[in-house]
């Protein structure tokens, strides 16, 4: 029985942010316009939050394959902005049977998002 998820990584480049904007149709200037973003509370360009959610899905896929996605419930907070140039790592630890404490972290080891995911599959029992 595994107690940690297999990780997934992604380096956040301007090209990746632009491609994710096109994927989601989210062209909020806080993601794409350095001058605009510098004048906001974020203090600069930040990546789209759900880009990290997709990375978390990859960690679940690496850990459990397609079974992870039979049904699941995610509850997370975006706790720190993701900046251009960072390499993100998604992972997690078992918290209770079928429930995982999940996170996406930057190069500095600090969480960018964290929360829980509950997997409704017998192949993802965890602790």
């Amino acid at each position: 029985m595994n107690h940690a998820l297999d990780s997934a990584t992604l380096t956040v480049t301007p090209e990746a942010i632009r491609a994710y904007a096109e994927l989601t149709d989210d062209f909020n200037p806080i993601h794409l316009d350095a001058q605009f973003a510098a004048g906001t509370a974020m203090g600069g360009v930040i990546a789209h939050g759900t880009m990290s959610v997709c990375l978390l899905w990859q960690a679940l896929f690496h850990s459990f394959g397609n079974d992870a996605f039979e049904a699941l419930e995610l509850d997370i907070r975006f706790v720190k902005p993701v900046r251009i140039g960072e390499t993100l790592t998604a992972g997690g630890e078992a918290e209770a049977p079928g429930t995982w404490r999940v996170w996406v972290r930057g190069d500095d080891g600090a969480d960018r998002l964290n929360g829980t995911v509950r997997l409704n599959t017998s192949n993802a029992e965890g602790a």
Partner: protein
Amino acid sequence: MSRPITFDDFQPGATMGEHLETYGTELASRWQHIFGAQPADGAGGAAEAASIAVVMMMRAYLGVVAPRPPGNVHAGQRFSLQAVPRAGEAIRTVVSCVSKELRRERRYVELRTQGSGEGGRAIYDGRLTLIWAA
């Protein structure tokens, strides 16, 4: 062009609109361009499909709640995946306003997105917590 939707415009409990989007090859190839195009990356499998469900949620929110003021921030997310969308499947998403609240001079808005596929099968139920810019 109409004025941007502001915090005052949100009506908790109100349905704001619907959005229809197909899980087509263009969305799939865009996801693969970012996250990888190999089966080991989840391409063509459930990791990609589950991501497309998240993409559907965002495209529905952005399509329905428009125009928006620039600079909104996505602060939190709950997401219940009930089934992964199938390649080629059209997903209908209903967007509604759950709540709005002023906290520490920030304007918090919670929106609900409920996605269903062919035959009305449930795909996802997502709740976005947003800090509204104006």
